[in-house]
Structures are given as C-alpha cells and as structure tokens.
C-alpha cells in the first residue's frame, strides 16, 4: 500500500515538474506569423522572392494612409503630412519615406532640368506639379478625389517590423483631425503575430472552461472534473514545452496542438472515470482501478492510435508547419493517452475513498433514445442505407469540387476589423495594397533597348486592362519623363554639333589655351521639357542611327536618376533585369492564378520572367494547401484503414469503418460550400483530423458488434452512449475555437462541430442498420475488444 502511494506521489510530482517546465517554455516560443513560414525554402516562389530582394531590396513596403474628410490639399494638412513623413523617415529600419509633401519633382528649366520639392508652400504650384505627371502621382501618392494621401515607407532588409510599426503608430497617435492607418504585408503579419499570442492566451482558457462544463456534465462531480483536466493540461503544457525546447516555430498550425490535445484527450479521461464510477463502491479504489485501467488500455490505445495516425498523416504534407503539427500532435496524443492511463489513476487512488452517487434518471432517458434508434434502424434501415449511400455518392464529390481555396492573409481576419476595412478603403481610393512583383530578364536583349522597353510597356498595358488591377509601377514612366525633360524638340536634331572626340586626361596637355569666356557667357542651353513623353524608339527623331544608340541615350538619362531607380532596375547604367510591381485592388486566388499564368505569355519565350511578392506567396500557398489536403486525406484514409485492418484482421470491416469518416468529410465540405468557407492553411487540416477522430466511433461499434453476448439495444446503450458523449465533448471543445481572432480557426471550430455530429450520427444510424439488415457485413472474424 505504502509503496503504491509512493509510486503515485512520484508520478504526480514528476508530472507536475514536467508541466511547470513546459509552461515556463512559453516565453521562449518562436512565433512566425508570416505565411512565408508555410512555404518550403526550396519552393520556386520563396527562391524568387529571395532573388528579387537580393537585387531590388525589401519587397514588403508599408503604406501609411492619411485621410481627410474634406481634402488633403490644404496647407495645414500638407504640413502635417510633411511632418509625418519626416518623422517616419527617421525611424530605424526605414530606408525611405515618400509622400506628396516631400517628394523631389523633376521639372523643366530654361536650360535643362531642375529638381524641386513637390510642395514648397504653394498649393497651386503643387497641383500643377501633380498634373504635370498625374499618371505617376495620382493613385500612388494622392487619390483622385484628393481626400487620401499616402506615405510610402520602404524598409531596409533587416528591419525589425514590430518595433518599427510601434514607432510609426506612436507618431500617428499625435495626429488630430485626419484619419490615419498603417497598411501593407508587414502590418498584416504583425497583426497575425499579436492575434496568435492573444489566441494562445484566450483560446486555451475558453476551451478549458468548455471542457470543464462538458466533463462536469458527464461526471457530475467537481473532484472528478478537476482530476480529469490534469492529464489534459499536462499533455498540452508538455507540447508547448517541446515546441520551446526544440525551437519549433509557433505558427497558426502548431498553435492548435495544445488546444487539440485538451479536446481530444478529454475522451480518454471521461472513459476512465465513467468506467471507474460504474464499478467503484467505496473504500480503497486501487483494486477496482487496476481492473478499469486494464480493461481500458486497449480501447484508449486504439482510439489514441487512430487519432494519432490521422495527425501523423500530415507528415505527407508538402507544408513544413503541417508536418511539425502532425508529429507534435502525434506525440501529444500518445502523452495524453498515457497520462490518462498512468497519471489519472494515480490521482484517483490518492483522492477517492467514497463512491459517488448513481444517476438513475439518466439511464432512463438514454434508454428512450436507444429504443427509438433501434426502432428507426429496424423499420427504416434499408431506406436509410440507400439515402446515405446516395448522399455520399452525390454530395462528397460535388461539394469537394465546389470548394473555394485561398490563403490571402487579410482574409484571416473578420471583415469588420479595422485592418480589413482600412485596407479595402485604401484599395478603393488608391491603386491597391496587394502586390505582385515581376522580375523580367530579357535574355539576349538589352534591358534599356527601346524594343525591350516597348515589349515591357505593351505587357504592362495588357495587364492594366483588367479592372481588378489598380496600377503597375515600372521604370517606363521615369524613362518617358526624362525623355520629355531632356529629349530634343521636333526641330532640334539637325543642328547637332561636331563629331564626338575621344579623350584621355593623362595623354593630353593639361595646360592648353586661355579660357573662352565669351562662349560660356553667351551659352544658352535648350529649354527642358521639349521632348516627347515616350520611350525613344525612332533613331532618326533623335539624330541617331541605331537602337543601341537609343539604349545609350536612355542609359545617359538614367545616370541622373541612378540613386532612385534601384527598385526597378538592377543597375542604373547597364541593367540586365527589371522589376515591375502590379498593384491589385483585391486579392482573389482565381484571378491571381489567371494573371500569373498570363504574364509570362506577354514576353518572348526566351526571356526569363519570375513572379514574386506577397500575392505570389499567397497563390503558391493556396496550391500547396490544396495538394496537402488531397495528400493528407488519402494518407489518413490509408493509415486508419491499415490500423483497423490490423485490429479486426478484416479488409471488409476496415472499409466499413471508414463510413463515419466519409460522412464527416461530406458534411464538412458541404458546410464549407454553403458558408463560403475557403480551404486555407488551417481548414485544410480538418479532413485528416475528421478521419482520425471519426474512425474511433466505427471501431467501438464494430468491436461491440463482435461480442456475441450483447444485443443491439445494449450496445447502443453502452457504446452508443459513449460515442455520443465523446462526439459531444469533442464538438463542444472545438466550439471554443469560434472565439478565435482568426477566421480560419473560427471556421475550423465550426466545421469540426459539424464533422463530429455527422460522424457520430452516421456511425449510430448506418452501422446498426447494417447489423440488422446485412449482419454478415459487420461480423468480425474474431472476438475483439
């Protein structure tokens, strides 16, 4: 007895130490809130983004929107805008901040060009300057209605986004009378990081509270409820500790692990307690508990094995965080099941000396339900089977084919959130805040050759035709503008001066002649701004002979711009690649897929066209998620089928056991179509989970059918009731996810509830109907379980 007690205390103390150690790991969790965390490092889009960033700098810009209810074009508002721009530019990690108030503007002068600050205190002049190059300024820095102005914030590659965003927000907090908002991918990523932390802080307590209610409902004892929670908290804490210890990135997928363990594990503790209460009459609980544990090892191990194998099937996913999720959940479930069989009995042995009160009323009410179910499947069994079969055959493929997919990060948030509303408003007012970066390497051609630039311009014109495209930013407007400012007027080519001399200061006599002051004093240069706003492409118009000469002219224009065009060309003089950015009004995966398929066709086949940027990541992720979903469904089915085959030694029963899973999937996919829920990085985990959890119901019922001494009412009264209890606890536990700040996790909660209802009901209706009408189908080869 004393030895036993010592053993129990040892188990409890060890578990407590591990639990505390696990919880202490929370501050060390490495959180990655970007969708980049889901993209494999060798994925083409990840490589393209790396390549683009190495050449053209950070892709993820931040936009600060400043909106006035009337107009931004007042001295006071422009002063505020200039002030904000200046303060933002001084923040660490900001490479450049540009707004209509501080931008440098090139304008023609009497003998060339002049660089002026856009706004120098004169509103009329500012408007003139905007209108002189409105295709560039409007929609980018000021909206057409002049109510919204943007501050474009370019970041350095090593910028610390959270600190930088906090600094920007602190600056904006001091603005009165204007509505300000911060937008862009880094902002969305930061919001996700904060939401992940918030979910971790709120979701676990909410799910735990729900579980307490569920456990209390089934166990009707505060003591039993608290004790049942211990193994769940233990395994969840341990999972968090493992993540911190092994530096497993805490993503939207892995953050679900502790929550899932709480929910899935509750079934095991309910199982142990309900059997214990049935047998225990008071006194030393040790002997009864030994029997209960021994009897439940197999069912709990089998249930854990199927659930864990459903999780483990995620190992086949192409997405890293899903594989991590799978492994972590697998170990979590194993720990949870083991602690239910070891830690929980140790706690019970120390805490119980008296038997709890029995509940006769419940037995009666559950008998009525059982009776009605038996009557239903006896009388309507065959039609139920036919209808079920039809539902499966029609709705499963139909709903799956209609599933929408998309992993746009903004859609992780509810449409009512400020971030979503501000982004949508900005997209409506300006060119758009979703972007796609296209790097074009014109193999075999000069980037600055007019024919290359014309091809680029034609491609951009085609892309811009789609109303969903807000604008395209490229090198083209700068070249046209420089040509307009510096290029020759219509009648200025014939009087070109003498032949070009080639000289070398080191081979010349450096002391020649007197200064011809008269020449300089009388010199009058050509006025700027006489050229055409075009890509110079007709050599004759420029007094040149070849396209190479024109390419050289363009390079000479860009020599003056060399410091500010590095976002568009990889070298100011002889670039071999150019980047253009497509700004999208909305992020829609289907249109994005069509656009990314079309873009390469707009260029000669030998040119290299690489598409990157935030929206390309989103699209690549969507494709990976869809692939992952298909792979994980099949691997989960195969895993659980093999496991059931191993249990029953019957391929027939292994196949029949998949029925509740198929109904769960049908219900989930149909609900997704009905509620327009997209397949995304979280909801794509659902299918494998449904299979892992849903298969248990079939296993329990088929095992019970195998016991020849038990009739159907008895089976439904015992096993059936346990299945309902389990489904209810899992469904209610998942319902807690509905309070998540993330739409996909919220959807996951809702869909899992639906899945559990579908899986348990289909198991309790279809399998008994099969037993009554086609008993040979559900008869196991051997006595099992």
């Amino acid at each position, binding site marked *: 007895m004393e030895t036993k007690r010592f053993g129990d205390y040892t188990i409890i103390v060890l578990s407590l130490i591990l639990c505390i150690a696990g919880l202490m790991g929370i501050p060390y969790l490495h959180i990655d809130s970007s969708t980049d965390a889901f993209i494999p490092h060798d994925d083409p889009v990840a490589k393209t983004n790396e390549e683009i960033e*190495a*050449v053209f*700098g950070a892709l993820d810009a931040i936009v600060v929107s400043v909106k006035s209810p009337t107009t931004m074009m007042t001295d006071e508002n422009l002063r505020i805008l200039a002030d904000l721009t200046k303060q933002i530019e001084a923040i*660490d990690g900001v490479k450049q901040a540009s707004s209509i108030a501080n931008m*440098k503007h090139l304008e023609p*002068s009497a*003998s*060339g*060009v*002049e*660089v*002026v600050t856009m706004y120098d205190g004169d509103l009329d002049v500012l408007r003139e300057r905007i209108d002189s190059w409105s295709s560039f300024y409007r929609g980018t820095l000021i909206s057409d209605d002049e109510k919204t102005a943007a501050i474009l914030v370019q970041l350095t*590659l090593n910028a610390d986004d959270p600190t930088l965003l906090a600094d920007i927000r602190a600056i904006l907090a001091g603005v009165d009378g204007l509505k300000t908002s911060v937008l862009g991918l880094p902002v969305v990523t930061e919001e996700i990081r904060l939401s992940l932390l918030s979910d971790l802080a709120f979701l676990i307590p909410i799910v735990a509270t729900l579980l307490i209610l569920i456990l209390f409902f089934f166990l009707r004892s505060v003591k039993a409820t608290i004790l049942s929670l211990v193994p769940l908290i233990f395994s969840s804490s341990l999972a968090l500790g493992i993540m911190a210890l092994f530096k497993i990135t805490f993503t939207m997928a892995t953050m679900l692990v502790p929550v899932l363990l709480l929910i899935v594990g509750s079934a095991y503790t309910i199982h142990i307690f309900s059997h214990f209460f049935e047998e225990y009459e008071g006194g030393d609980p040790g002997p009864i508990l030994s029997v209960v544990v021994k009897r439940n090892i197999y069912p709990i191990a089998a249930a854990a094995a199927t659930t864990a194998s459903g999780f483990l099937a995620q190992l086949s996913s192409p997405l890293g965080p899903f594989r991590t999720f799978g492994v972590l959940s697998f170990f979590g479930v194993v720990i949870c099941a083991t602690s239910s069989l070891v830690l929980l009995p140790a706690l019970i042995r120390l805490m119980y000396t008296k038997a709890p009160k029995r509940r006769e009323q419940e037995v009666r009410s559950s008998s009525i339900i059982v009776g009605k179910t038996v009557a239903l499947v006896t009388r309507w069994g065959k039609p139920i089977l036919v209808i079920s079969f039809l539902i499966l055959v029609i709705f499963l493929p139909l709903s799956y084919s209609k599933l929408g997919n998309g992993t746009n990060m903004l859609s992780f948030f509810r449409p009512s959130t400020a971030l979503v509303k501000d982004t949508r408003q900005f997209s409506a007012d300006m060119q758009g805040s979703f972007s796609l970066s296209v790097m074009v390497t014109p193999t075999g051609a000069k980037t*600055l050759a007019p024919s290359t630039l014309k091809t680029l311009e034609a491609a951009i014109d085609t892309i811009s035709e789609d109303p969903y495209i807000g604008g395209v930013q490229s090198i083209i407007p700068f070249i046209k503008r420089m040509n307009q400012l*510096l*290029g*020759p007027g219509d009648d200025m080519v014939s009087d*070109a*001066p*003498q032949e*070009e*001399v*080639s*000289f070398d*200061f*080191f081979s010349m006599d*450096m*002391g*020649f*002649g*007197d*200064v*011809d002051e008269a*020449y*300089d004093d009388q*010199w009058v*240069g*050509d006025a*700027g701004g006489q050229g055409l706003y075009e890509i110079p492409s007709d050599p004759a118009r*420029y*007094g*040149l002979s070849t396209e190479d*000469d*024109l*390419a*050289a*002219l363009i*390079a*000479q*224009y860009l*020599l*003056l711009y*060399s*410091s*500010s065009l*590095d976002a568009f060309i990889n*070298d*100011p*003089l*002889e670039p071999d690649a150019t980047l253009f950015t497509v700004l999208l009004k909305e992020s829609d995966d289907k249109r994005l897929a069509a656009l990314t398929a079309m873009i390469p066709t707009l260029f000669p086949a030998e040119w290299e066209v690489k598409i990157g940027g935030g929206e390309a990541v989103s699209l690549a992720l969507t494709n990976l998620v869809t692939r992952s979903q298909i792979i994980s469904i099949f691997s989960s089915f195969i895993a659980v089928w093999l496991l059931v085959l191993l249990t029953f030694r019957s391929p027939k029963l292994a196949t029949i056991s998949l029925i509740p899973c198929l109904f769960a999937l049908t219900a989930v996919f149909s609900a997704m179509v009905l509620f327009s829920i997209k397949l995304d990085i979280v909801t794509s985990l659902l299918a494998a989970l449904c299979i892992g959890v849903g298969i248990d119901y079939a296993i329990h019922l088929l095992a019970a059918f195998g016991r020849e001494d038990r009739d159907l009412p008895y089976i439904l009264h015992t096993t059936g009731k346990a299945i309902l209890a389990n489904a209810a606890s899992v469904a209610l536990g998942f319902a807690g996810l509905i309070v998540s700040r993330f739409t996909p996790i919220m959807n996951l909660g809702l869909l899992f509830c639906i899945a559990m209802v579908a899986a348990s009901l289909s198991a309790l209706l279809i399998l008994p109907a099969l037993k009554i009408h086609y008993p040979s189908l559900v008869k196991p080869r051997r006595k099992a379980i």
Partner: protein
Amino acid sequence: MKRTLTILLIMLVLTPMLFAASMSASQIITKVTDTQKSDSAAMDLKLTLIEANGTQRERRIQTLTKSVGDDVMSITVFLSPESVRNTRFLTKDVGGQTEQYIYLPALKRVKRIAAGEEGGSFMGSDFSYADMASTTYDADEAVHTIVSEDSLSYTIQSIPNNRKTYGKLVVVVDKSNYLPLKVEFYDLDQKTVIKTLVTEQQDVVDGRPITKILTMTTLATGHATRLEIVQARYDMPISDNYFTLKFLETGR
C-alpha cells in the same frame, strides 16, 4: 555636389610629422583633411561593383579638379560602360553657388541640371555623391572625439553638426601618414553601422601618400564597391578651359 569627387581621393602631401605631444581629435582630422587637399588633380578611377552573389560590374571614369581658395571646379568623364562613354559632368562650386551641367553624347547637347542629392548613390555604387567628395568630416563640420589610440592609429568619432546622411562616423586614422584606414558610417540613430570603408592598398604618388584601393560595403545588402586609383597626378597647372561649357560640349 557640394564638394567634388577628387578631394577625397587626392591623398596629397605626406608630412609625416610624428608629433610627440598628443593631438586633439580636431587637430588629427585637420591633418587628415590637409593630407588629402590639393590645388589640382587628375585621376583615372576604376569602380568595381560587387553584388552579394559575387557578380561584378566595372565602371571607369576620369576626373579633373581644380581648387582656388574655397572655389572648386571639376569635370568628370565617363569612359565605361559603353552606353555612357563620353558623358561628362561639369560642377562648379564658385562663390558658394553650385552649378552642374551634363553633356549627353547621344544627343550631343549640354543640359543644366539641378544639384543631385548628397545621399544618392554614385553610378549605382555603394558610394554616395557625398562619400565621393569626402569620406570624413572636416574639423568644423562635426564634433570629433578620440575614441582610442594605439601605436599605429587613432580612432576618431565624428558626430556631424548637420545630420543629413549619417548620424556618426568612426574613423581609424593611420598615424604614419594621416590617411583613413577604415571608416564606419552610422545611421542617423548613431547605433547602426550602415556602411564600412576599408583601405586595401596605399601608395605614394608624386611624393604624397594616397589611398590607392578602397572598398565600401553596404552591410544590409552585402553589396560592395571597390574603388581603385589607376592613375593620378596632383598639383599640376590646369587651364580653366577644362571647366567650361565649351569643353564640356566639344571636348576641345
């Protein structure tokens, strides 16, 4: 350009006086500036732009500079790449006024242009226009402090009075010839090093020490630019003819 390209690169008049008495930071910086001063200079420069992935591009320019008191005139001719060959810049800092002109060989025309931004990149290199003029602040442009000193060098911290491009410089000065050995350029926050300039080779031309090869690296991108003085001549008589619109336009 407030100051011209060549002032930096003309590493003139070696006066290797080894002061026994300790010098103040300002005195050291004044020596650094004086060492690099010249009345006139001609230089043939090769800039090698090195991408983080090792890809290299070459630029070749020649410059001619003449200083008279505070007035500085310079002409820069681009020799390569081919597309900008013979493009010429004329800069005149005369009487506190800066005038800049560009000759575009493709159009065979001179255009007056506005002064470029000091912080802007020079020809796509890691040097800004301001760096090309000078990589240290003059004694009166910043507050200079000696951070450390050893037998070979002084380390001076310079905090500019007018923080436009950099928040702080840390300059390691060679005690033997007062040439900068290394310069760290700090962001406006005075904490983050954004670029480093390292002297790779020194030389003596016309009896004066010069920095022959130096490399500027931008830390955030890993991009670097190696600047080599291929040929140089200092303090020779140069006609004002070179710094005229006529020469800019005709090359004669």
